């Protein structure tokens, strides 16, 4: 699925030393852009995607033939208005939509990497994407924005490159993964590995695919993206195309059918090993530890203006964890705004049509851009 002519990619020749100790070079970084970079090159926004996202933020995704993952927020006239801003988004390394990942061929063995691919981190992802600035000859981005794992990349980006973005908007995120976050990711990984078609990670070389395991991983994860109230309101105990229980293990309930569908469509667009690698990167992310227990130090050198956003019903990256970022920034007098948006849509609120969120985001971006002129 990663050999498609509609994927733009940059070959990065500069060696990148990964946190695991290995070095990669001449590797592809797939990206997509929206809008036009102006002459002053001061209107560029780098959007970071979440765990299962990709570079196709808006419009039609040429691979899935569905609308981009952040179409509610990004596009002409949207909160991140592509009539005014030049939006760049890259597929993370370790991913499966054109950037170097476990489904690529290892030039040394001429075989698909599988789990011989090096372990990558959020730091590695961000360092790889920093090459885009040089490529587009952008001295300073106007904004770095991302939700969930995208938010982790926002935090890591500002910490690594304190003078490369005027504003930073981490959304529904955390400065490190809680035990609960790691637990859910481990559940997903174990379900992939328990699929006999996983073949010890070598499925691609053996023409197999651990679809069952990957789809169960997606089903479990999907529950964590929603809220109890949201699920109850949408599905309750409604039955799926039947009037009564069938006294079987069929999908009697709509919620079962919905989750099975989510699992089945996911395996068509995502690589199981990428899922292992990216969830691992999220688990390893610990910006507090990177700065010896003091998160404030991660932002000590930055003049970047922050807006942190959380959602009331998000229990995966709850408000309290987002607030820790705000507290760390306030402790050093950084310019930080914070709002918790009322929503019953859980962690997925940032991806969905959440008007209060989208309006606040739009106004903040536009006023910040005008004031920076």
């Amino acid at each position, binding site marked *: 699925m990663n050999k498609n002519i509609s994927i733009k990619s940059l070959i990065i020749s500069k060696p990148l030393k990964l946190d695991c100790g290995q070095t990669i070079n001449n590797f592809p970084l797939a990206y997509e852009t929206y809008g036009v970079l102006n002459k002053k090159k001061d209107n560029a926004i780098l959007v970071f995607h979440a765990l299962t996202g990709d570079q196709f933020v808006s419009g039609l995704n040429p691979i899935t033939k569905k609308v981009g993952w952040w179409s509610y927020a990004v596009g002409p006239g949207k909160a991140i208005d592509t009539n005014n801003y030049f939006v760049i988004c890259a597929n993370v390394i370790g991913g499966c939509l054109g950037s170097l990942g476990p489904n690529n061929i290892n030039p040394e063995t001429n075989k698909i990497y599988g789990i011989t691919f090096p372990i990558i981190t959020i730091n590695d992802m961000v360092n790889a994407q920093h090459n885009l600035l040089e490529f587009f000859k952008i001295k300073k981005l106007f904004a770095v924005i991302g939700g969930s794992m995208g938010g982790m990349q926002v935090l890591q980006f500002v910490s690594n490159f304190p003078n490369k973005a005027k504003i930073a908007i981490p959304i529904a995120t955390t400065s490190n993964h809680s035990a609960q976050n790691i637990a859910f990711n481990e559940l997903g990984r174990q379900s992939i590995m328990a699929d006999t078609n996983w073949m010890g990670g070598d499925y691609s070389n053996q023409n197999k695919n651990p679809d069952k395991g990957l789809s169960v991983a997606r089903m479990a994860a999907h529950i964590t993206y929603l809220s109890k109230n949201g699920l109850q309101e949408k599905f309750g105990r409604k039955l799926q195309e039947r009037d009564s229980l069938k006294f079987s293990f069929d999908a009697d309930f709509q919620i079962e059918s919905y989750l099975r569908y989510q699992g089945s469509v996911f395996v068509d667009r995502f690589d199981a090993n990428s899922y292992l690698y990216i969830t691992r990167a999220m688990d390893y992310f610990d910006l507090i530890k990177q700065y010896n227990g003091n998160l404030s130090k991660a932002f000590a050198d930055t003049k970047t203006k922050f807006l942190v956003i959380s959602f009331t019903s998000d229990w995966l990256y709850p408000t309290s964890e987002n607030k820790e970022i705000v507290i760390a920034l306030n*402790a050093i*007098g950084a310019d930080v705004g914070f709002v918790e948006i009322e929503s019953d849509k859980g962690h997925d609120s940032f991806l969905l049509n959440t008007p209060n969120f989208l309006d606040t985001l739009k106004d903040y971006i536009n006023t*910040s851009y005008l004031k920076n002129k």
Partner: protein
Amino acid sequence: MKTEFKIIADLIEPNTRVLDVGCGDGTLMEFLKNNKEINIRGIEISKNNVQQCIGKGLTVIEGDAEKDLSQFPDESFDFVILSQTLQAFLNPEKVISELLRVGKKAIVTIPNFGYWKVRLHLLIKGTMPVTRTLPDEWYNTPNLHMCTIKDFFSFCKNRKINLYKSIALQNLKSSKISNTNLTLKNLTAVLGIFLIEK
């Protein structure tokens, strides 16, 4: 309102760091930003207000001043403003001590419960006063701890808080409050504006 803002603006020195506690929809912050060279932040409890502030490009965090001021280091601001919200806190005493920890100086404004119209309302009508500055009924007012200018004076004296400047506001007129005219100002002022420090 405008007069109060102008007086607050006059109390703030340029090129300082300012925190507006309970900044509402950001009207005062915007006024100060447009009239003074200052670096101003806000903290506000209402989501709707915070969203409006952020939309205006103001640096505001959602939070409860009774809990969330603790995240700011000592003296991280030159001035901390508390405009007409002291009476709405569960523990105004603690809030004042937090203001004076976080800020080198604090500007506190209070609706004066000693204003003659308020006194007369209670005296003649025998019901809880409802006025332009105190528009709510007893059962729905957010104001838990009303006080008078005189009360605030003795509060500061007892806690050895330095009342740097005290200003009485009556409609559009402002005047200085001193120990000698305190009783009179406590009767005629609608609003008291105080610049205090530890």
